[in-house]
């Protein structure tokens, strides 16, 4: 067991990465941000990439998943985009997505380009909805705008309806992904309500509409001049929109 000693010999601290390191990571693999990865976890990932045996790598991954503790699972899944034949790990990734351990789910979904590169639309949309369900930020999911799609917008709109019907708040993050299809999925009334809601909702909805070039979106935004002005004056940026204030 080459890496069984890694935690004892290398420690369990996070890799100390500079801004330049993170920039290099993104240059090597777009969207890959290994911040927060432990040094022993990184060592295990490096070691796994060296595997050249005859058994399919997916079987190796499965064996490891079944016996790994929580920390090892996180490391195992954070390495997804670096392993040989990553597309062969679809079943194993599904198991990770179904995990009730948030750390495992986020090892797949946060700062990891694997979903953008290898998920089909159904799995992609399911991941986004589960992220909302477990209150995990959408902001760090790689490829959100690129992989956004009308079916996801419909599902997010259903999510909005369900939350409102239950008297619950919603993550302001959802408006960004409904926004491009607001007219197509019939979400203009919901945007109207959000534009009259809490400041965080107003800002997120207004920003989403501002990025939609359709006449309906422009007209709706124009009916809310205060919110529109904040967007025009760059008082609201996408980076300010978070899942905060979800009730």
């Amino acid at each position, binding site marked *: *067991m*080459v*890496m*069984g000693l*890694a935690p004892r*010999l*290398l420690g369990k*601290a996070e*890799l*100390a*990465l500079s801004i330049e*390191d993170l920039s*290099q*990571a993104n*240059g*090597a*693999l777009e969207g*890959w941000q*290994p911040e927060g990865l432990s*040094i022993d976890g*990184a*060592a*295990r*990932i*490096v*070691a*796994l*990439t*060296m*595997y*050249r*045996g*005859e*058994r399919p790598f997916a079987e*190796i991954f499965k*064996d*490891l998943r079944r016996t790994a503790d929580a920390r090892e699972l996180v490391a195992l899944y954070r390495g997804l*985009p*670096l392993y040989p034949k990553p597309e062969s790990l679809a079943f194993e990734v599904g198991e990770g997505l179904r995990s009730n351990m948030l750390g495992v789910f986020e090892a797949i979904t946060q700062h990891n380009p694997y979903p953008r590169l290898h998920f089909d639309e159904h799995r992609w949309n399911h991941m986004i909805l589960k992220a909302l369900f477990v209150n995990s930020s959408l902001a760090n999911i790689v490829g959100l705008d690129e992989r956004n799609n009308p079916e996801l917008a419909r599902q997010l709109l259903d999510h909005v309806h369900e939350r409102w019907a239950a008297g619950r708040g919603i993550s302001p993050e959802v408006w960004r992904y409904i926004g491009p299809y607001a007219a197509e999925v019939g979400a203009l009334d919901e945007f109207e309500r959000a534009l009259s809601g809490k400041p965080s909702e107003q800002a997120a909805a207004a920003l989403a509409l501002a990025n939609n070039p359709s006449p309906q979106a422009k007209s709706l935004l124009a009916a809310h001049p205060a919110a529109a002005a904040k967007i025009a004056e760059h008082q609201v940026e996408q980076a300010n929109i978070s899942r905060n204030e979800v009730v």
Partner: protein
Amino acid sequence: MSEKPVDLLRHWILRQAKEQSAWFEERVNALAEGARSVNCIW
């Protein structure tokens, strides 16, 4: 030209491992010679 992600990871580990970097480098080089079983990796 960008380095491969795994090479970057290896570099960062070595940088941080200090006195244990030789141990890690030796193990990784041994694996590169032919890691044919998961039992010899994980």
